[in-house]
């Protein structure tokens, strides 16, 4: 149900954007559609390996280790470990979410996984090196990373206080 609603929402958005592009010029619309489809085709290998990898990895992951290090009762140490693993996990949308979902399935606590996803979203080292440093002033990059340090812990703390998800 939700999946269908999301598909509908996304494709309505696609139609609206394509119409907006067509108003400017037909060429612009076709260029956008073609670029999007090409990006999709290029993502397929990652998608295949990411999804299949997540399923198998969750199966072989030693559950007791995950629970004791990253489980709901792992406290500040668990959050710190989750944050560090998140920061060094390479970028690309499949990798981080696949690892996070695997950990959640294998018994990690939700706040710990939120800390992981937050740290990965903010730091993903490879993304910083490949995309951020080449186009931004170095000082600004370090400043952004320093200002982001508390965020994974704050996100986990808010989630714990709210008792969700």
């Amino acid at each position: 149900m939700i999946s269908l609603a999301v598909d509908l929402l996304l494709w309505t958005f696609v139609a609206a954007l394509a119409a907006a592009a067509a108003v400017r010029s037909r060429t612009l619309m076709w260029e956008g559609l073609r670029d999007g489809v090409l990006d999709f085709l290029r993502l397929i290998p990652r998608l295949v390996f990411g999804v299949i990898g997540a399923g198998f990895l969750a199966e072989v992951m030693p559950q007791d280790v995950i629970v004791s290090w990253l489980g709901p009762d792992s406290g500040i140490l668990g959050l710190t470990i989750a944050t560090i693993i998140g920061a060094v996990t390479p970028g690309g949308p499949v990798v981080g979410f696949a690892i996070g979902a695997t950990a959640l399935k294998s018994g990690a606590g939700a706040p710990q996984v939120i800390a992981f996803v937050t740290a990965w979203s903010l730091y993903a080292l490879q993304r910083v090196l490949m995309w951020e440093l080449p186009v931004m002033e170095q000082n600004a990059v370090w400043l952004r990373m320093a200002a982001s340090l508390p965020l994974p812990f704050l996100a986990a703390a808010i989630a714990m206080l709210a008792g969700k998800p």
Partner: protein
Amino acid sequence: MPPRRRISTFDWSTGVIAVAALAAGVAVYLREGQDRFLAILVGDVGLMAYMMPKVLAGCVIGALVTLLLPREVVTRWIGAESGFLGFVIAFLAAVILPGNPLTIFPVAGALLVVGADIGAVVVFITTWALIGYQRALVWELPFFGPDFMIWRIIVSLPLPFIAGLLARMAIRARGKGGGP
């Protein structure tokens, strides 16, 4: 505008994931037998089928928004405002823009060049990283389900502003200290 840099088909992080996926698959097959292996594989293929239309829509949205909203326009919006309003505009712009680092970082870099408030630039990048709708719907939802995704986004809402304020405070402190 310079030519758009493309997503590469295969990079080293995909390579690492591919090796891990194959190794885990072999381990499951050897340890738990063919039936369990096939059950997991069928489940994963189902998940993939569920993700495909979302990922395709997400890619097309990304490409169209990139063409419709040139980075010069975004730079002008964010660069023009300062103070809290600057934070809010940076936040909204990052929510709208597609979740692609090829679009985001050049905009952020251009903002710094035109002298925008560093706090707003940090808000912009942080919001994009944590709250982009496109990445959430396309990738996070299929892997985690709606409950996790929605709550993760809710708890993340204040975070870009906190990072922006911290960045601004750090710059001010450095200014007062009269450092290099």
